[in-house]
């Protein structure tokens, strides 16, 4: 185990994954994995296909239930909670297959990202989870607010729309001019951007991105890298967990890298340490590297 387990009860900010396992009838997709994601940190999760990276994200976001282990956000247990509750605790995520709401317009899609915050009273998800976290406004108040256009509700809606607009405009001219088009009409890369925009519109404290640069060419990947770096500069406490195959992106943004192989942690450390570890190279290539690492740069 690379990280020492924090004593339970002590409030340590950050996301703590402790001894997490998920077995699918015999297959150990995730096997006794532990790591921490601190506020303001960018952690990259890499590994060959089938290493358990996506399953790990499914577990942390509550879509899958772990077989064993604990997930803590601060001192709040996340394992056993549903995906909605985890999202409302300030944990946003994207999917490997970029799940947008296909028939909704780009604008409506992003606005759905702000809805949970709107129901919580217009506040963002930046506050640390307290005892009343996740409390939503009452449905009758919501109906009255929407039907009658009550001023308080309209103000909350306007604030939420402003957040959605900011999130869309982060992607420059990629999405904003297309905001009235249905999401299914977008290109593959733009659907990824839209999903990330929806996640960011909720102003989460932690973000899990599952292969955000898949389907993007090198210049688009560089653009996304810049965006993530800008985001970090703007929100110094945002914790970011990125699953990514493109090591150029990983090397530029990650503070630390966790390498998974066959469900287990193979190595952790700075990008340089972890990615050039001979064991890691062997897991990826199936053999030891004979050429220098720089010669693979053209692969992204």
């Amino acid at each position: 185990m690379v990280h020492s387990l924090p004593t339970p009860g002590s409030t340590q900010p950050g996301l703590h994954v402790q001894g997490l396992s998920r077995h699918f009838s015999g297959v150990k997709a995730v096997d006794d994995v532990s790591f921490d994601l601190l506020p303001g940190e960018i952690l990259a999760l890499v590994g060959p296909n089938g290493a358990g990276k996506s399953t790990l994200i499914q577990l942390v976001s509550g879509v899958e239930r772990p077989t064993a282990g604990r997930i803590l956000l601060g001192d709040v247990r996340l394992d056993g909670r549903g995906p909605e509750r985890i999202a409302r605790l300030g944990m946003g995520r994207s999917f490997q297959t970029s799940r947008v709401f296909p028939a909704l317009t780009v604008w409506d899609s992003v606005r759905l990202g702000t809805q949970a915050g709107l129901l919580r009273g217009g506040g963002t998800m930046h506050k640390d989870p307290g005892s009343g976290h996740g409390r939503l406004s009452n449905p009758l108040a919501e109906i009255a607010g929407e039907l009658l256009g009550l001023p308080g509700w309209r103000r909350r809606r306007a604030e939420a729309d402003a957040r959605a607009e900011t999130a869309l405009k982060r992607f420059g001219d990629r999405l904003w001019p297309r905001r009235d088009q249905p999401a299914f009409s977008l290109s593959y890369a733009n659907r990824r951007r839209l999903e990330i925009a929806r996640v960011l519109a909720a102003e989460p404290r932690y973000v899990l991105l599952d292969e955000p640069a898949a389907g993007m060419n090198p210049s688009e990947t560089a653009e996304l890298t810049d965006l993530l770096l800008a985001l970090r500069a703007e929100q110094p406490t945002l914790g970011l967990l990125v699953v990514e195959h493109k090591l150029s992106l990983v090397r530029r943004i990650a503070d630390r890298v966790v390498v998974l192989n066959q469900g287990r942690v193979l190595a952790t450390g700075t990008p340089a340490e972890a990615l050039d570890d001979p064991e890691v190279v062997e897991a990826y290539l199936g053999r030891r590297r004979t050429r220098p690492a720089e010669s693979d740069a053209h692969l992204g």
Partner: protein
Amino acid sequence: MLELFASQIVNGLAIGQVYALIALGFSLVFGVSNLINFAQGALFMLGAFIAFTGVTTLHLPLVAAAALSVAVMSLLGMLLERLALRPLENAPYIAPVLSTLAISLIVDQLAEIIWSPEGQAFPVPFEEVTYFFGSAYITSTDLLIFGFGAAAAIALTLFLSRSWLGRTLRATAQDRDAAAQLGVRTSNVKRLAFGLAGALGALSGILVALYFKSVFPQMGLPYGLKGFAAALLGGLASTPGAVLGGLLLGIVETLASAYIGEGYRDLVAYTLVLVFLVFRPQGLLGDRRLDALGGLGGAGGAMPSTSVLSSSSSQRKATRVLELPPWGFLAVGLALALLPVATQNAYVLQAVAYAIIFALLVASVTLVSGSLGILSIGHMAFYGVGAYAVGILARNHGWPAEAALLGAAAITAIIAMVAALPLLKLSGHTAALGTLAVGQIGYLVFMTWLDVTRGPMGFIGIPAPRLGLLGGYTLASLTQKFCLIAVVVAVGLALAQRLLNSGIGRVWRGIREDRLAAHAAGLPVRRYILLGFALSGLLAGTAGGLFAYVQSVVSPESFTVSASILLLTLAVLGGLGNLTGAALAGFALTLLPELLRPFAEWRMIAYGVALLLMLRLRPNGLLGAR
């Protein structure tokens, strides 16, 4: 005592075997095309009638007539696939389902025209023998049904597991594209599945005809629904599951009928279905292995979506949506309220009043089926709750109309919400089955709760609406009731449209488009589904209350599941999720049959054909799905 129980079990096994055969037809087709074939009931009925004609008109021996029927039904099954389903391969997922519904509307009505709507005796060419074991007994027909049913199920299982043709069928069921890549002609496989479904339909139809010694054109729907329920109990795509589900359903309902009362046969059967959907939605022998990949739909597909409006082709076309703004409904309602100025003709006013009520009812269906994407085949139950509630509040408790209508709407909203509880975790086909069970249970409660509803005798003597706010002014004439209806419906539709345009409507559509993404975005999905059902119940209950006021008599016959199915087709016709489309379809299709009264028996056929054409030409509905 024990002997009686044993006889009941045997009896249940016999009828269960019939359900199993129908269920096998469902699961074969579901396996290869991921489609619930609502025409299976029609195939079953036709099979029985062809054998009937063979025996009575052609004077064939029973075995020859049965063979003829099986052969003809296999061909018709393939024809069904070619005409109704192949052209819709890349259409929205809902289109083929609706297409099979349209086919069954057409076939059922044609059968009534050809063989007359009355039931007819099915001549059984052999003497029935009853064997006694103590006081338990078993008839030769029971044995025949059980033997034939079991033989057919075993033969099918062997065919599927041992023959190459059967293997291609199973391969296509698992992954159509991969099977095609390996050289399996998947379109032939589909045809084969539908042919087999036709043969199974014929066989089960003949067995039921032997069991009851009669045939009637309306037999398709109830048995089709039972077979569908049995297939789901067993696990939709599982062959042994279908048999097990059929036998279980047969035994449970026979026991219910013997020990609780004949009226409870179906009530218990559909309650069992609902219980199963809550605790074991994958069915007895179904499995969830694919869930690790995000379920059957999540594993493949270029763009993940849970919507019934999306299709297996990666290309989706943008559709133009025509709809009224909220105030538009008020304007139209006001204009309609002035109709009595133009005509005092009672016939016209009555017909238009029903049309307006239906507009509201279909709108309530489109709220759940379109915006939320949970296909509802049970909305007539909510309509009925509203009607009975107004009857009870206005007649037994003397409430004024405003209070009675609001009360009925509130009661229906609560009941709709309770009915939605078991459906919360379901989606797609299983959710549709859940609403079907809700609709059946509602109808059967209206039939059997005699103290309150007076069952089939009807709830009579509902007083004319008395307006408490206007000092007890009573709307005694049809003209006055007409104005009340137009105003209430217009206000209801305007409010519903405003909600659909608001953030709440956006969340509903989001849940329809991708429920997993909605969860992951932190949206309280349960709350919004319950809210959708509550508001839909509110509208349906109001419509039911108005209906009770116009009719002044309410009886369960108005709230059957076949009427619920018609409602869903109307919602699709208007464009799912499009309130204007739904209201227009409901309005127009209540009035049109009045105009076509001389051709009454051809009406449903014309409607079925129109529906088929619409699915081909405008799969997103007349005014566009939203």
